[in-house]
């Protein structure tokens, strides 16, 4: 009897081992920290239940290293099945044959706002599915505006009003007028792009030609130079994260941030506007998406694509958006009403979806970022004249253009 039981146990073990061998693991790299999005874990568990032949190994990697990790693994021939990447990297990944295009039916495409889909689309194909989306607005501190004798029913709508408000706050209160991030970090470039779009400027045109040296962009740099006089001292030491406590403590009158920034501003009675309009443009914003991509050559492209589509299905994606505080990626019926009922400030971020501009697409986007940041820093520090900075950036961008 004992021998029989032992044989049965051994057979059971062998069977479960065999079953385990039949389960294929999908390695997925997710930027951020475990616990950021509990609802995503629920969705993955549900997908695994529907697809018992697969197990998802979800690896969280901090933002600073996650893109490098996914790309380095891919280069070394050990690509993850899928990864969460800034959509700005897609062109580089696609041009280097690392990711595969994602075929979407017209119906699936219709589930996205065209401006959102545009952030992951080039050469006529979609290269990733938007996972996180942000539009940005100008937060202004109503208390400081009142203290400076500025109107508090409406925030700045134009650059002239922004400058006047920053100057007044700087001169009439103990706070600085505005927070400008100018550290050697990506949101220095992003911040500039928002003002650039609100003045009708561009970095590259629809054909991919570098068109940075334009009167609009020189004007934007000049505006930045003026604005820097009323910003926090030493803007080159600040990225957006370091400015958040300054705004929350009432030490700066204005800050540009996304909807997800609201949770950090609990101490402030703030108003929100779209990015004020420049002399040659209209109020606008920058559309930034992060996407889930499917890597090539992993042997699990099909289930990975299935997983990615499952996770970004409208209802599931909306749950993730709500938890992350992100602007909704997908067009879900009733989403707008739900968000506005929850917080009327959503209006600015939702209005921005249709009118904002995307991140410029270049294969060597990191070089582009460095070039733009150096130009911005030079102007903010007063070391380079705006026109000179724009012209130099143009020539350096042309060198790295595709």
């Amino acid at each position, binding site marked *: 009897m004992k021998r029989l039981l032992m044989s049965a146990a051994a057979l059971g073990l062998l069977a479960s081992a065999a079953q385990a061998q039949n389960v294929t693991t999908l390695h997925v790299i997710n930027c951020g920290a475990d616990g950021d999005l509990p609802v995503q874990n629920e969705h993955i568990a549900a997908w695994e239940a529907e697809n018992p032949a697969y197990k998802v190994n979800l690896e969280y990697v901090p933002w600073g290293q996650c893109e*490098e990790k996914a*790309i*380095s693994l*891919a*280069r070394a021939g050990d690509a993850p099945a899928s990864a969460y990447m800034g959509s700005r990297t897609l062109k*580089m*990944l696609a041009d*280097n*044959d*690392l990711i595969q295009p994602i075929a979407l039916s017209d119906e699936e495409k219709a589930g996205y706002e065209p401006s959102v889909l545009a952030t992951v689309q080039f050469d006529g194909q979609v290269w990733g599915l938007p996972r996180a989306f942000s539009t940005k607005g100008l937060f202004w501190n109503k208390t400081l505006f009142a203290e400076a004798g500025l109107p508090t029913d409406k925030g700045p709508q134009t650059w002239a009003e922004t400058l006047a408000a920053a100057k007044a706050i700087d001169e009439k209160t103990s706070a600085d007028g505005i927070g400008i991030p*100018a*550290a*050697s*970090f990506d949101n220095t470039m992003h911040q500039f792009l928002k003002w650039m779009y609100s003045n009708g400027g561009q970095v590259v045109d629809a054909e991919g030609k570098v068109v940075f040296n334009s009167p609009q962009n020189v004007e934007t740099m000049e505006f930045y130079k003026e604005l820097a006089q009323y910003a*926090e*001292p*030493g*803007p*080159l*030491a*600040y990225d957006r994260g*370091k400015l958040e*406590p*300054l705004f929350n403590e009432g*030490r700066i009158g204005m800050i540009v941030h996304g909807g997800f920034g609201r949770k950090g501003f609990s101490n402030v009675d703030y108003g929100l506007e779209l990015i004020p309009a420049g002399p040659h443009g209209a109020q606008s914003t920058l559309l930034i998406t992060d996407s889930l991509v499917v890597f090539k050559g992993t042997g699990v492209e099909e289930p990975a694509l299935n997983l990615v589509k499952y996770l970004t299905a409208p209802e599931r994606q909306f749950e993730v958006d709500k938890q992350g505080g992100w602007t909704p990626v997908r067009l879900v019926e009733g989403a707008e009403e739900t968000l506005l009922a929850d917080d009327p400030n959503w209006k600015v971020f939702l209005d921005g979806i249709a009118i904002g501009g995307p991140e410029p697409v270049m294969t*060597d986007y*990191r*070089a582009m970022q*460095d070039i733009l940041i*150096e130009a911005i*820093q*030079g102007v903010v*520090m007063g*070391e380079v004249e705006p026109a000179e900075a724009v012209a130099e950036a143009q020539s350096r961008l042309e060198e790295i253009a595709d």
Partner: protein
Amino acid sequence: MTRRFDAFPYLLLLPAALLTLAIVAWPVMETFRLSFTNASIRATEDYVGFQNYERLFSGGFVAIIWRTLLWVTLSVVLKLAMGLFGAVLLNAAVPGRTIFRVLVMPPWIVPIAIGVFMWSWMYNGQFGMISGLLQRWGFLAGPFEFLGYRNSAFLATVVTDVWIGTPLVTLYLLAAMQTVPRELHEAAWVDGASRFYRFRRVTLPLIAPSLATMALLSAIWTFNSFEIIWILTEGGPRNATTTMIIDTYKTAISRFQYGAGAARSATLLILLMLLTGIYLLLLNRMARRARRLEEASA
């Protein structure tokens, strides 16, 4: 009579030799090979001759080399000076010196990233201690961002590096000082030599080899110091703190230009090898001098 060749010792050495080849020699050779290619994230790579090196030296890399040398020199000189000063104090026969020896260690024990984050907050103009104290004492009219301006950011990274690196130098030199024979000091004292004279003519020459060793090691570590600058400034503002290692990382890892990054690494390696060569020459001379001194005193 001819000696028979005994292979056994070589067999014993073989595992270590293979390991060294695998983890040191092969990566170095691979780096040199990559430096002559246009390797990037593309799966294929082509041989491009000296193109990476030509681009390197026709661009801003020469300025980066000079900046690195300045950063390393400032940092190493300060670490050695402060370490020597600290070692002299800790070597003095004062009550409770063991406690002082322990108190010297925290900057070196605390994980570098945590220490550097602490410094980054201290350098903050709005909330940081340094700017706050300087304002309170009337040296500053308003908040000053130490990491927001070229010169102050450069010096701030040096100060942080010195803070982290000094304890090890102190303890190393302290250990060296404790090997100096007491009789030499006593003989000099009997001859009427002052405390400073004894330090200059007895202690310093005898610890010179240790000082040189520490100078070289410290220079190598400082050359390769990455996390301090990266966490504080990422090489900014406007490249004011971009050293060779930061530039290499940005090129090879951030921009995925592995070939160009390897050319930078290879240049860094050659510079460090030159430095090591100079050090070995100096060390030999110092060792000879120390031997002469000991023989003279015997």
